[in-house]
């Protein structure tokens, strides 16, 4: 019924075109399965919760023009001004902009004067309004207070006494323990008490292996430039943005003020990943399309070449579905060969991808899904020509080609 034997020998006689299709399907599978896991990884990365209200926040950079500018005085005045603005929920001062790819980090230890075995963390110097401004969720302990704030010159060394940290950092540095009340050391003998834990925040760098390890300290330093974050009422961000530069310059014209919405920082930080996702998706789609077109072309060619045979078979009693089935089974044989080759190639290629280019490991599930996809593409492409073949009239047999 399936005429497998004659089908195989017919294929063998047309082995080069058949092999070329198998090869295309194999390469396609090898490429697509490796692409898909990269895309999947990047989409997961981009989709990680940031822990903050990205869409409602505006970042402001203030740079003083005079060399001996009183930044600390300016911060208090600016904060008063910003927090009183209509449609503004809250504002805070910070040494870095969240998710902006630029910030500060340090290594922290559990023991005084410890030098090895510390845990790296992103560090914010900010004020008590950061929880409300960023939209963080305090899950344990307390926020720091205004009286715990320290304002000082960048060249000064001051000991900081309290910190709020993320849950992830807490679990990494004090695994399985209640972090509240525990000390952090930054290489000397002075303990910094952990007074609060926030649910999560990715921190300044999205690509960092320790992203999510974040510590907040109640510090503002008298630097030449400083960052403010302003959180607007939901949906009012753009309205607030319009007046900010003007209001701040009005209060004190002695600075250069730049604003940018936080979502733009985030988009820029993920631009590389986004580019990979887009480019690789386009590649995967066009690849499938091109291969499908190739299969359509070749199947049509084959069928045209065998139009007479098909007519003869029909004249000898083959039904329409016999004919279509023949071509679909033939196509499946080719596709399965390609998929076998392609799976092997995919796994080999993936080893290099993992070893040399730090890409994710290809597991069986995505590989099987891609293999199935390739089979579906191949069969879909063969379907239309195969159905058309079934329409070849038995009368073709009696006409010479």
């Amino acid at each position, binding site marked *: 019924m399936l005429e497998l034997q004659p089908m195989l020998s017919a294929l063998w006689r047309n082995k080069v075109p058949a092999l070329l299709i198998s090869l295309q399907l194999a390469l396609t599978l090898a490429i697509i399965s490796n692409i898909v896991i990269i895309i999947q990884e990047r989409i997961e990365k981009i989709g990680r919760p940031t822990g903050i209200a990205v869409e409602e926040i505006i970042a402001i950079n203030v740079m*003083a*023009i005079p*060399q001996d500018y009183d930044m600390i005085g300016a911060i208090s005045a600016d904060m008063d001004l910003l927090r009183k603005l209509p449609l503004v929920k809250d504002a805070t001062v910070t040494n870095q902009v969240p998710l902006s790819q630029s910030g500060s980090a340090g290594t922290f230890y559990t023991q005084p004067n410890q*030098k090895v075995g510390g845990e790296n963390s992103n560090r914010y110097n900010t004020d008590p309004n950061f929880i409300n401004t960023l939209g963080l969720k305090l899950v344990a302990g307390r926020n720091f207070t205004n009286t715990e704030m320290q304002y000082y010159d960048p060249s000064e060394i001051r000991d900081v006494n309290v910190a709020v940290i993320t849950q992830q950092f807490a679990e990494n540095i004090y695994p399985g323990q209640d972090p509240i009340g525990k000390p952090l050391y930054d290489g000397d003998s002075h303990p910094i008490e952990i007074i609060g834990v926030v649910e999560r925040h990715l921190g300044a760098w999205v690509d960092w292996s320790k992203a999510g390890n974040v510590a907040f300290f109640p510090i503002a330093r008298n630097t030449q430039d400083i960052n403010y974050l302003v959180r607007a009422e939901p949906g009012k961000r753009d309205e607030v943005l319009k007046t900010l530069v003007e209001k701040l310059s009005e209060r004190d014209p002695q600075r250069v003020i730049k604003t940018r919405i936080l979502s733009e920082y985030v988009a820029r930080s993920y*631009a590389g990943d986004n580019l990979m996702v887009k480019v*690789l998706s386009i590649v995967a789609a066009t*690849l499938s399309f091109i291969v499908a077109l190739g299969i359509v*072309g070749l199947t049509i060619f084959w069928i045209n070449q065998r139009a007479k045979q098909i007519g003869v078979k029909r004249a000898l009693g083959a039904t329409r579905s016999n004919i279509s089935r023949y071509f679909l089974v033939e196509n499946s044989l080719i596709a399965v060969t390609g998929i076998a080759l392609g799976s092997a190639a995919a796994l080999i290629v993936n080893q290099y991808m993992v070893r040399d280019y730090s890409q994710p490991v290809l597991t069986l599930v995505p590989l099987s899904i891609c293999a199935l996809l390739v089979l579906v593409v191949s069969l879909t492409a063969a379907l239309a020509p195969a159905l058309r073949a079934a329409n070849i009239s038995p009368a073709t047999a009696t006409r010479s080609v």
Partner: protein
Amino acid sequence: MIGYYISLALRSLRSTPILSALMVAAIAVGVGASMTVLTLNYMMSQNALEHKDDVLFAVQLDSWDVNKAYDNANEIPWQLTYKDAQALLRSDIPTHQVAMHRYGFTVELEDSAIRPYTADIRVTTRDFFSLFDVPFIYGGTWEKTADGSPMQVVVLSKATNEKLFSGENSVGKTVVLNSQPFTVIGVIDTWEPSPKIYDVNNSSFAEVESLFVPFGLHRKLEIYSWGNTNGWDSGEEGEGYEGFLQSESVWIQFWVELSDSEQKAGYESFLTAYIQGQKDQGRFERPLKFALSKPSEWLVLNEVLSDDNRVLGWVSLAFLLVCVINAVALLLAKFLRKAPEAGVRRALGASRNAIFTQHLIESSTIGILGGIAGILLAFMGISGIRYLAMGQLDTVARIDWVMVAAAIGLALIASLLAGLYPAWRISRTNPSIYLKTQ
């Protein structure tokens, strides 16, 4: 004869418009995708200092934590501490040497309508311009004393000079930086190395800074770095700004020009001796290690061409390969369908070569059309990438003539390769079997 083959090729392509379009599209898409990615990778791999690759060296010293190696490929910090940079500057072995870092100032002009703005600054020693071959339009670099003691002089980029002084010779005029007056002593010409080879630590594809000020200003203006500052010994830091300068934080980029191997050997022994001396004073507790990297090596070491770029490069080449195989299959199908015609031609006196050439010309025609369409696609791809990268790749995402030529070449090679087997196959088939009565 070639004219005859070309007319046959065109006739044949026109007789199967859909199949022809399919093959042209396959080649075009393959070439377009690979050209887009390869252009990007090619531009990212450019070495603006190629002509001085044998004489320029980025200097790294391993002054890092005894407990933990620096976390990069060669386990030496990218940058130097301020005190080590100052010590190296005292050497008279290198032809030129540069200690520098990125910084920012507010910029304004006295009695001017131009609103104050912030600008990227390079704080550097005077040799920056001669070492990196930066051309001047007006004036020149500062005196050597400015590298050691505060002198408020500035070199402007061409664009800054346009903006502040409408492109006139501004040497001698005053620019106000962070409310301090600076005297313009030079204006450089357009100079846009990309990747920004001299500073790949702070985004490799950023623009060149717009102002340059001397290295002797640190103490007077309490200048910190706007690039990375990495420390490991937070406990030891002394009081005040001086404490920061004397700390173990690394933040100074250092380059030297060593004209021959003798000079290089001399400099290497100088570095060895320096590190030994520091070891005696209790610094440099790790095993003695330093590195002098040529610009080309520096680009590789810093992974300016990222893993993602390399992955995209391979993906696009594999993609092109699939497109070529696709074209082979379709061409084979097409040529085999016309095999009887080839048989008749053979019987009428066409040699195998004639048949082969005729079909190869047909596939080359497809290649040329595909190549041209591929270049258009590559232009679209490149602008797509500029858009997706949100301006971060503008300096590298562009096509130059080399790449246009390469694209046409690639398309031709791809289609010739694709046409080779089918054309050979058709020229080999025995004509007699197609002449038989059916």
